[in-house]
């Protein structure tokens, strides 16, 4: 049981290659972190995994618990168990948060089966309490007029509600003050499970003080260039990404 990425290459529509052979195995039960400088391809990896049409996978495979998902559409991948917490979540004007999450849950049910509204709200409120979100939040339009911190909390709320098999969190720590970061980390930690794999994409070590990863990878120029345990993140924090410029590693 794992989200497995094998020799993945992906380019922009203009042919520029961004991912240049990424191999990564995220078994259920583990939290992996990918760190790396800006422009290394971290966010692209998250979008390619989610099936974004702006990137063209040119070779390699993505398998989810043994099933090749390369040919699946964005929404099919979502329903198969991939969740992406966005760095910059889109606004959906006029659609309330409660209805949006509900529509997402509904899309996972067989045709003709309906969500029990009362049970849904009970669950939603419980998860909002965990993330210290105001009840008024349910009737606000998705991400419209949200602060940066509110948007990130909303991503985590959706993640908890959809209960995915594999979570990809793209720069979830960016734009958060320390209190908001702690709340977000609480939500993510509550989702740690032997049945779920997680991939944290982050520029800074800070997030990893609150969410302890099992493995840390360093990405540079479209490849994973180093892998190690949590100590690698601390090393990066101390030394920065300058070591990437050393010729031995870059080659």
């Amino acid at each position, binding site marked *: 049981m794992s989200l497995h990425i094998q020799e993945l290459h992906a380019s922009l529509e203009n042919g520029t290659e961004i991912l240049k052979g990424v191999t990564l195995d995220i078994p259920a039960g583990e939290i992996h972190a990918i760190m790396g400088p800006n422009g290394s391809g971290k966010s692209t990896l998250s979008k390619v995994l989610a099936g974004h049409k702006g990137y063209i996978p040119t070779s390699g495979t993505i398998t989810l618990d043994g099933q090749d998902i390369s040919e699946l559409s964005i*929404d099919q991948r979502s329903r198969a168990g991939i969740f992406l917490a966005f760095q910059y979540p889109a606004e*959906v004007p006029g659609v309330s948060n409660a209805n949006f*999450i*509900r529509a997402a849950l509904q899309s996972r049910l067989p045709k003709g089966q309906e969500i029990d509204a009362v049970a849904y709200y009970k669950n939603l*409120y419980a998860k909002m309490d965990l993330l210290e979100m105001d009840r008024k939040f349910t009737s606000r339009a998705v991400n419209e007029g949200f602060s940066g911190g509110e948007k990130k909390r909303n991503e985590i709320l959706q993640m908890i509600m959809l209960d995915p098999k594999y979570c990809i969190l793209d720069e979830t720590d960016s734009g958060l003050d320390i209190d908001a970061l702690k709340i977000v980390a609480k939500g993510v930690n509550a989702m740690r499970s032997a049945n779920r794999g997680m991939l944290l994409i982050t520029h800074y070590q800070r997030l990893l003080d609150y969410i302890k990863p099992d493995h840390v990878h360093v990405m540079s120029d479209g490849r994973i260039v180093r892998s190690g345990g949590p100590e690698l993140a601390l090393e990066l924090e101390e030394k920065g990404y300058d070591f990437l410029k050393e010729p031995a590693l870059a080659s």
Partner: protein
Amino acid sequence: MYNDDTATALLEKETYDAINIDRSKGDFTFPERHKFDAGWGLSAHTVDYISDVKKDPDWVREFRHKALKIFESKPMPTNWATEDLNNIHFDKIRYYLSDGEKPKRSWDEVPEEILKTFERLGIPQQERAFLAGVEAQYDSEAAYSNMKEELSKQGVIFVTSAEGLKEHEEIFRPYFGKVIPTGDNKFSALNSAVFSGGSFIYIPKGVKLKQPLQAYFRINSESFGQFERTLIIADEGSEVMYMEGCTAPKFETATLHSAVVELVALKGARIQYITVQNWSSNVFNLVTKRGLAMENAEVRWIDCNIGSRLTMKYPGVVMKGEGARGEVISIALANTGQHQDTGAKMIHAADNTTSNVVSKSISVGQGRATYRGQVHIPKHLKGCKNNTECDALLINSNSRTDTYPAITVKGNRHATQHEASVSQVSEEMLFYMQQRGLDQGQAMSLAVNGFINDLVREFPMEYSVELKRLIDLEMEGSVG
């Protein structure tokens, strides 16, 4: 613990339940069984035929003939409107079709095929559920017209226009053709020449209807024109909500629907007129609607256009008494092959009058939405206010929207504001929604429903559910 949100959630659930209805709800037809048929084309003879069949009083016959001359003398307004109007062939249309029956007061007496039609459209069911009265028109005449007995006792009149002009001439005649003069435009003249069906409503002083009255306009026959005429008079301090719906089968040839609707709200009265227009895509829908609001009265048009090939409709309010209010809330959805040319006319004719226009249009595929607004505030008045907002949403890159606001404000003792926006459902928004599991069609529907959400709330619940359904259906297959 569960507040209003739970109620909202339940409503939403019903909405979602309802999404999977048959798209072609109104697309069926029964064989024609007409006793009276004015034949093809329009002439003085056609007008006399209609007057004879309807046993018009002389003043109505004269009114029709005068109107025919005005219609013939007026050019097609293609100097400002679409050239598509030239595709209406007036000689290939039948102007009057009826079975010669009077409207029935009970559904049991309605001929079987007509009853089946309206049952299929859910009209008797709606009547039982939440309506104070219903008129159901089939081609040129109403097949059914009835209202709750308690309303008759209060003096409410709800009959067809033919009954109104004969049996209630003393109330009908002074207002008929006064809010919208025959020569207002080519199509108001056409309607005035051949009108048949539609409602006459009178609400006595101080009577406030708790439930809406409804009219349903059904076209069954091919190459036909429907020309209903509606006049609603709300006497001082009264209140009424009137709703209209419509459908027609989809024919190969063009169908014409050209109505005239006049509203009169006397001192302190309130009229809300709600339309959900769902004509099939071969219908030219050219309608003139205007209300007169006297002192402290209010006229609200809540107008939703989803169907038709071409709709031209600019509901208006003439605010003639001090403190009068006028409002137009409008939603238009233009899919490929459709042009929704809609808007509003706000004529301020007294001090301290207030008007509000909120228009939202959605263009899908090669659909085209046009907004035309007119706000007129003359110099000698003071304290008038207008707010106009028009927002357009384009779904595809070849969709089209145009806005033609005309705001004439003279003098400096008024407040007006105008806002317009054009937006698109962005790739980024779709990616976000799809990442949460919605397929592209569902994501698009949700985005569109979000765009018009605040306006849909203005419709009674039964209609807002229907409306969301229709929009979801229209959005299906519009993407990809």
